[in-house]
C-alpha cells in the first residue's frame, strides 16, 4: 500500500488523476474501519488531511459553500446559523468522531444513513466536484445514485457542497435504539422557506438514497399559514403531513430495524418537525 500526501488542492487533483485506484481519505472515520477489519486493502491512500483549501467555508450573498474537509465539530461551531445542519453534526458519533469526520466523507461514502445528507437534500444543495479537467456541479439528487453510489468519477475529488441560504426555520432528527452513538434507523430534515412559501422534507435511512417527500412538501406548502406566523396548524393537517411523509419512504428490514418501524418513525418525526418549525417562526 502506498500513501500519497498532497499539500495543495492542485497537487491532490493531479495525484487523483494519476492514481485512479488510490482511495481518498480525510477524517478516516469510515475508511479506517474497513481497513482495520481487513475488509479494505486499497493499493494506495490519497491523504487529503493537509489540503487546507478543502477546510474552508464561505457565504457570499445568499450562497453558502462548505468545503469537503470541514469536520462536523467545526460545522457545529461555525455554521450556527444553519440549525438543522448543526443538529445533524452534533448527532454524529462522539466528540472524537466529530473532530475528524468530514462532510466530504459523509457525502463521498453516500450511505443512505449519512447524517448530513438529509440536510443537504432539504437545502436542495449542489455537490461540487473537481478534477484536473475542472469543476463540476451537480444537484444532490443526481449525484447520489444508490446506496454508497455516486456519480463521482475516478479522477474526481469532492470539493464541497453548496446551497442557497433560505430564510426560515428548519429541523433535523434521527432515531436509534440508544441515546447516543447510533447509526440512524430513520432520520429526516425539514426546512421552511418563509420567502418562497415552500417546504422541503428529506428522509434518511428509508430508501436506497436519501429522498425528498414531494407530496408531503406540496401539501404543507398549501396548508401552512404563511402570512400568520402566530397561527398553528390544525392537528388533522399535521397528521396528514406525517402520513404523506411516510408514504414517500421505501424502507427495508435490516439488522437495525424493520421497514414498518422506519415508516412509523418517519411519520412521527415529520409531524413533530412541522410543529416545531411552525412554532419556531414565532
Amino acid at each position: 500500500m502506498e500513501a500519497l500526501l498532497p499539500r495543495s488542492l492542485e497537487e491532490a487533483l493531479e495525484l487523483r488523476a494519476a492514481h485512479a485506484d488510490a482511495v481518498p481519505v480525510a477524517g478516516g472515520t469510515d475508511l479506517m474501519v474497513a481497513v482495520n477489519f481487513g475488509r479494505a486493502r486499497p493499493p494506495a491512500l490519497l491523504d487529503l488531511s493537509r489540503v487546507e483549501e478543502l477546510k474552508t467555508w464561505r457565504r457570499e450573498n445568499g450562497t453558502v459553500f462548505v468545503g469537503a474537509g470541514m469536520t462536523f465539530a467545526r460545522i457545529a461551531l461555525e455554521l450556527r446559523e444553519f440549525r438543522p445542519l448543526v443538529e445533524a453534526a452534533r448527532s454524529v458519533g462522539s466528540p472524537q468522531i466529530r473532530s475528524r469526520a468530514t462532510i466530504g466523507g459523509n457525502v463521498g461514502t453516500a450511505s443512505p444513513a449519512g447524517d448530513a445528507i438529509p440536510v443537504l437534500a432539504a437545502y436542495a444543495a449542489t455537490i461540487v466536484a473537481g478534477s484536473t479537467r475542472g469543476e463540476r456541479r451537480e444537484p444532490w439528487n443526481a449525484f447520489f445514485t444508490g446506496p454508497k453510489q455516486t456519480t463521482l468519477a475516478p479522477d474526481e475529488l469532492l470539493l464541497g457542497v453548496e446551497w442557497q441560504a433560505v430564510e426560515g426555520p428548519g429541523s433535523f432528527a434521527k432515531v436509534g435504539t440508544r441515546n447516543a452513538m447510533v447509526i440512524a434507523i430513520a432520520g429526516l430534515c425539514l426546512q421552511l422557506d418563509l420567502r418562497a412559501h415552500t417546504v422541503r422534507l428529506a428522509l434518511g435511512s428509508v430508501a436506497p438514497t436519501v429522498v425528498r417527500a414531494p407530496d408531503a412538501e406540496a401539501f404543507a406548502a398549501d396548508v401552512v399559514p404563511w402570512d400568520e406566523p402566530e397561527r398553528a396548524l390544525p392537528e388533522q393537517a399535521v397528521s396528514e403531513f406525517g402520513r404523506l411523509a411516510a408514504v414517500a419512504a421505501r424502507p427495508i428490514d435490516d439488522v437495525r430495524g424493520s421497514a414498518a418501524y422506519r415508516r412509523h418513525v418517519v411519520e412521527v418525526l415529520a409531524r413533530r418537525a412541522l410543529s416545531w418549525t411552525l412554532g419556531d417562526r414565532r
Partner: protein
Amino acid sequence: MLIRTTVNGRDCEADVWPGASLLALLRDELGFTGSKNACEQGECGSCSAWLDGELVCACLVPAVQADGAAVRTVESLGDGERLHAVQDAFLAAGAVQCGFCTPGMVVAAVDLLERNPQPSDETIREALAGNLCRCTGYQKILDAVHLAAAELS
C-alpha cells in the same frame, strides 16, 4: 513508510505500512500502550488521544496523518510524581474497575475540563458519549469528573 511525529513532546519515528492506524503506531511501534484497542472502529473511545490538540479516536486516524503532527496520549498526564487531578479523582470516586476504558475516559474527561471547567451533568454525558464502559455503569465516572472539576477550580 517512515512516520515522524511528536508524542507527548518527544520526537519519535517508526516505519509502518501505510494502512496502519495511529493507534497501531503508538502501541506496536512506539511503545505507548496506554491507549487501548477495544473495537478498532471508533465506537468505544478506549483509544482516545489528542492529535494537534483535538480529541480523536487513534484507531481511526491513518498513521500517515500523524506525520509532522503532535500527538498527546494518556501517558502525558501527571508529572511522573503526581497524578493529574482527573486521574486522582477517578481513583477517589471509585470510577475504575477493570480499567480498560480508563485511559480513554480520562483523556476525554481532561479534554472536556480543559474546554469547559464547570460542566453540567448533561454536558459531561455528551462529552463522554463516545467512551464506553462495561464495568461501572458510569455513575462514579460522573462523580469523578465533578470531583476533578472542583479540584481544578
